[in-house]
């Protein structure tokens, strides 16, 4: 425990404000080149379905190494409490293959 606390204290001591600012500048600059998750934010909740499908699908790729489209469709349906259940065919148009922006 002491070792862990001392480790964090040392890392804090070694972290300069300049490191944090550099980190922030690089992250924001990289983010400025990325297409936003919500392309038409003014559409409000209409955009939520596409946003959620992408995030759930992305989580499946990260966790299980596969998109699990059918399950992504069902989870999105339940989360948003949709009257008409989504199918895998409804989900696929919103997805971008991994590695492509």
């Amino acid at each position, binding site marked *: *425990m*002491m*070792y862990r*606390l*001392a*480790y964090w*204290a*040392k890392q*804090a*001591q070694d*972290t*300069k*404000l*300049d490191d*944090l*600012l*550099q980190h*922030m*500048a690089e992250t*924001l*600059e990289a*983010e*400025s*080149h990325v*297409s*936003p*998750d*919500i*392309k038409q*934010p*003014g559409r*409000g909740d209409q*955009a*939520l379905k596409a*946003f*959620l499908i992408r*995030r*759930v699908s*992305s*989580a*499946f790729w990260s*966790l*299980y190494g596969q998109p699990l489209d059918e*399950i992504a469709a*069902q*989870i999105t*349906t*339940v*989360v948003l*409490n949709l009257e008409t*259940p989504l199918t895998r065919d409804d989900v696929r148009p919103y997805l971008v293959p991994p590695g492509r922006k």
Partner: protein
Amino acid sequence: MAFPDWAPAILVDQYTRLSSEINVRQAFVLTDEKEALVENLQPVEESRLSPRPAQLEVEADVLFRLLTHPDMRSIWPALSRLSTRLPFLTEPISTLWDEVKYALRDFRILTAHPQTPAERRKSLLSVVSKVKALQQAISADPFAKAYAKELMAIHLTRKNLNYRRDEGEIPPEYEEERICLALSLDCIKAFDNKEIRDYDPENSNGMKHR
């Protein structure tokens, strides 16, 4: 509240805790006047780690549906089977719920201040240029440069001292500035102390085997 036996236990536990948090918040409803006063004293901006109370209620409703909707009956066992192939992840299902929860929070935050893609890019690059200007300004001033080097340690130590003072561990009359750096340096010395570094409480001798 009894949930179906196919509902993942870890998410049932999270729902129970979330409901308790909402109930506690509702039990301490502040008057408008007091709420305004509290907000003036401690302005807390909504973020993905500090959701508004109303957002927690939305999340509780969503989680309840995920734990009870008949369509989820086959989904959770299927995901549990897939999860057993991932021994390096402790709770993939909990991670999945976190993703859903944070997606809902992110969407709310992103749509609260709508930006077109061009506006977003322009705004981000504007911040980048100001951050770079700040870096240059700091490096041009000797005191600012020296202080910026230790700022992280001093800031964290001060927060730690405030916490310990609030908990009653440190007498309130202690001046934080005076002992701030001293305590910080103590921790560094402890890190460099071989006996402390090698201390292993799980070993019967208290020291690591060589």
